[in-house]
């Protein structure tokens, strides 16, 4: 079951790399958020039940519903529906994704771990999502897609955390969630301002700003 979720997380990463429509990307991200939210439920083990359910409900609520809602609104407001010409096309991006996948499995097998029961797959998946997020941030033009990339990266970090430290205090995890929430909020405002003053959200054109 947990394996299934990890496989789906990898596949959503690829869908994310291969799609240019922002609405579709946001939906993929929502699916990823819901999948992520389910992980603690499946591997919670001995942790306190109430704590896990709070974590599951909050993370699914924020990552699966609230953030996609804000992103969709930002997309509508900035009036950009499609990533038109990324620096690297969608098909080559997926090939890069395959390389990232290989790299992350290799790294995961190289890292020394104390507890080697479950984590190797989780580490690989989390590294893969971090790589995908970074790659999307550097290879796409639109600010909104870069925000999506940031969120995928953050999802990767979250998988790492959940897979390893079931016993991290609830407050810390909630703090991270809050950070992401605020970050997306701020980025949404930024995107709104960029699109209001320049009629587009192409970040590579920002470098030619004149004082």
């Amino acid at each position, binding site marked *: 079951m947990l394996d*299934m979720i990890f*496989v789906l997380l990898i*596949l959503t990463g690829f869908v994310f790399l*291969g799609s240019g429509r922002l609405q579709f990307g946001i939906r993929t991200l929502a699916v990823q958020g819901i999948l992520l939210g389910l992980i603690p439920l499946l591997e919670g083990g001995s942790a306190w039940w109430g704590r896990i359910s709070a974590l599951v409900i909050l993370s699914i609520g924020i990552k699966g519903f609230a953030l996609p809602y804000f992103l969709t609104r930002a997309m509508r407001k900035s009036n950009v529906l499609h990533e038109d010409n990324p620096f690297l096309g969608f*098909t080559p991006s997926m*090939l890069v994704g395959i390389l990232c996948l290989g790299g992350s499995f290799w790294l995961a097998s190289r890292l020394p771990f104390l507890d080697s029961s479950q984590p*190797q797959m989780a580490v690989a998946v989390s590294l893969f999502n971090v790589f995908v997020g970074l790659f999307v941030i550097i290879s796409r033009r639109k600010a909104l897609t870069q925000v999506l990339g940031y969120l995928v990266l953050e999802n990767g970090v979250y998988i790492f955390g959940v897979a390893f430290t079931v016993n991290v205090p609830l407050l810390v995890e909630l703090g991270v969630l809050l950070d992401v929430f605020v970050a997306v909020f701020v980025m949404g405002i930024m995107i709104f301002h960029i699109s209001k003053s320049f009629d587009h959200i192409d970040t590579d054109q920002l470098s030619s700003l004149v004082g």
Partner: protein
Amino acid sequence: MINLYALPLVFLSLAAAPMLLGVINRVKAISAGRKGQPLLQVYFDLLKLLRKAAVYSRTTTWIFRAGPVISLAGLGAALLMVPWGGIPATVSFAGDFILLFYLLGIGRFFVIVAALDTGSSFEGMGASREAFFSALTEPILFAVLITLVRLTDELSLTDLFYQVTPILWTSSGAALILLVVILLILLLTENSRIPVDDPTTHLELTMIHEVMVLDHSGPDFAFVLYGSALKLWIFSALLAGLIIPVRSGSVLTDGLAFLSGMLAISVIVGIVESTMARLRLLFVPRMLVGATAIAAVCIYLTLK
């Protein structure tokens, strides 16, 4: 290893292969609210074509005439190595799947060369697309085989499919489900079915397979048509071997389970064809690279 007692099954496959096309057409007709052509229409078409005489253009050479024959011969030989699910194939040896897929490759090569031989610009276009897409499907195919070999530790198709049991499905279901998805995409691409190519289109500009065989007529075209039916049968047989893990050991039970799997696959293909539109040509490579990505995930899953 040669199992002569599996030979009747090869003849049964030869006889039943066009039926798959009939079932697909019937499913499409029903979902479109039509009555549709008779189930046996493909057989009628083949008989009609075989009675006709072939017309050859003066610009073509022997290559054009050899194309359909070689391609059909390759497919027929490949059929000897395809197991019916758990029932052994007539010929099996370590690494037989490589021979099988390169026999299909020889067939495709000669169809492409024959298309180029006509000197028609449309056929050249179709040939180029066919070559491009088959170059993209080959890594996927071998990734599938690598995964299967790693899952079962066997090196011939017969042994390999014999190991695909419900036990394997429970122990590595995730990889097998992905394999089924990839094989379905491969089946649709290799046989020029709808998301990739529309077998019923009448516009040469958008065709892939059909445009390559425009100049063939009479028995040659019958060979091409029958060859595509056989190819569909071979790919469906591989898929059916995966999705129907019935390995009781009795030929009757296994054979019936396999045939019902084949029927189910052609119904699924029919449903896919009637619910989807053909993808834009630019999107096909993206879909295939996506399938390669899934195949890579499969391999990594078996590496654990």
